[in-house]
């Protein structure tokens, strides 16, 4: 950590275990405490139970409407910094009907729902660390 950087409790929500774990390690090395959740429901429960300074969440996860989840967090915690992340590309819409929605559309929706920052996977390690610091400093 460089001088002036703040330490924070960060909740990371991602359905991909490898992504969750590596993000935890990246944030831990940046000096933060990290709690992990594997889906939206677990994330909301942990947020309600333990709270967090920053939420980093995937926006496309099986069984979770990421955009609605961001909206719920924003309603419950109006000042909570939220960073949404998503793998670039496109995915079938939530109801699995034919067609595909690009992840940029999801990220845009999440921003409207209240996300403060968006990151498209694969992003650089520093990009996440900087985003967290910027939000903590605001």
């Amino acid at each position, binding site marked *: 950590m460089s001088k002036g950087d703040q330490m924070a409790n960060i909740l990371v929500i991602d359905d*991909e275990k*490898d*992504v969750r*774990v*590596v*993000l935890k*390690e*990246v944030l831990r*090395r940046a000096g933060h405490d990290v709690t992990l959740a594997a889906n939206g429901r677990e994330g909301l429960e942990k947020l309600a139970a333990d709270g967090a300074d920053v939420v980093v969440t995937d926006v*496309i996860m099986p069984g979770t409407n990421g955009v609605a989840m961001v909206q719920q967090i924003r309603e419950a915690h109006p000042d909570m910094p939220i960073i949404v992340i998503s*793998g*670039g*590309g*496109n*995915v*079938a819409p939530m109801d699995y009907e034919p067609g*595909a929605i*690009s*992840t*940029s559309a999801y990220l845009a929706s999440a921003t409207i729902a209240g996300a403060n920052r968006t990151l*498209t*996977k*694969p*992003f*650089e*390690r520093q990009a996440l660390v900087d985003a967290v610091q910027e939000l903590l400093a605001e």
Partner: protein
Amino acid sequence: MAKRLTTLSSRLVLIVLLIHAVLLPVLFLALSAVVKQNMADSFIDHARVQGRLLADGLELELDKSQSILVAHLDSAILGGRIVYATLQHGDDEITNSLMVSSDLTLFNEDFEFGEHGDQTYYLSLPIISATDMAMLHLGFDESLTQGDFENVQRSIVLIIVAYLLIVIVAMISLSATMTRPLNWLQRASRTIASGEYDRKLETDSNLLEIHNLTQDLERMRRNLVKVNARLRHAQRLESLGTLAGGVAHEFNNVLQPLLLYTDLALEDLPDDSPVVENMERILALANRAKGLSQQILTFGHIDEDAALEEQPFSPVVEEAIIMIRALLPATVDFRVEISAQVGLVRCDPTQIQQLVVNLCNNAYQALTTGDTHINVTLSRRSVDADLAARHPNLRAGEYVVLGVADTGRGMDAETIERIYEPFFTTQTVGEGTGLGLSVVHGIVRRHDGEILLTSEVGKGTQFQIYLPLVSSAGHNKHEQR
């Protein structure tokens, strides 16, 4: 019945019947009148000649006894056609004694055949000799000639009826001949409308209208085949883009931990560790994979964050040309003709530069040894309605046209059909990614443009990228569809 009369053949037959229904009675009446006049003239001439001969005979016999005169008149009666003969000589009235008809009492002179309606033609002839004079009254039988005339009338009716039958049969046959190619065309059009485009439209009819109609329909069919092929091609690329986007999404989820773990591991390793070099190679490969994933997304024009902005187009292309000159070997004959100010285009400069680089790289890969070159041009062009009709992504209006031509190997139709598919490549395995032209396609689509491609095996390939020009006032110059 009403429905049947809507067909061309039934209408033709009906029209011909109506025309004949008016014309044939007129023809019948005219013919009858002419024939009747001729027969009457002939009858009267004949009667006058016969009467004159009788009168001449009697002239020499006027001084003879009454019985001799009666014998003369009787012989005339026996000669046929004359039904009575009376000679007025002074106060005497000498009449034939044979075949006397009681109702013939009038000596009126007839002026026409058939006058008085009594089947008799009256004729009076003066007999004047040097010493004497008399008047001969004759009656000629009109019934035989009348009978002949009725027979002729019946013949005319029979001829007209026969003619009418022949006309009807001929019309049915003619209309069938005329409508046969039309019916065939109708069936063929229905086949095409049902989605079978392969049936060629042709006719053996030598009627100009049908020949022209067939040619027009055949031209429409060929256009339909082309448009359909283009549509299928676009749909295939669309679905490939969607598929590729889905793959890229999963791929990025894998790449994320791969990149970060490698980065973290490198941080943990002492600088002199023998593992560092390999870890750095892994990181470089992961970054290359990241680049590939981004190219796939460009093809599907997915996840583009940068907004398109109006800017002068020539400098954007010129910058790309500088890059390409640095990349291409100095031996390559690289010719550039760029109009300095083609105008404003709504574009993403990074993507346009990538497009130019990819096209030039593609041209370079196609070059063979010998007298070959790459030619890059940039100019503006008006797209007319005709060109727009042939290319669904073009609209009538002003465009900039970026041309990249090479005199290399060229491509066959099968290759052209597939060149925009991701990972399709004609290069040896390992030489190219097969993404270059897929990316070009994605960029052009995102910029609302069109690619026109001509290529000939052994002669070379020319790409023309049409991108819509923006007017100086900032309004798009293209017709809205």
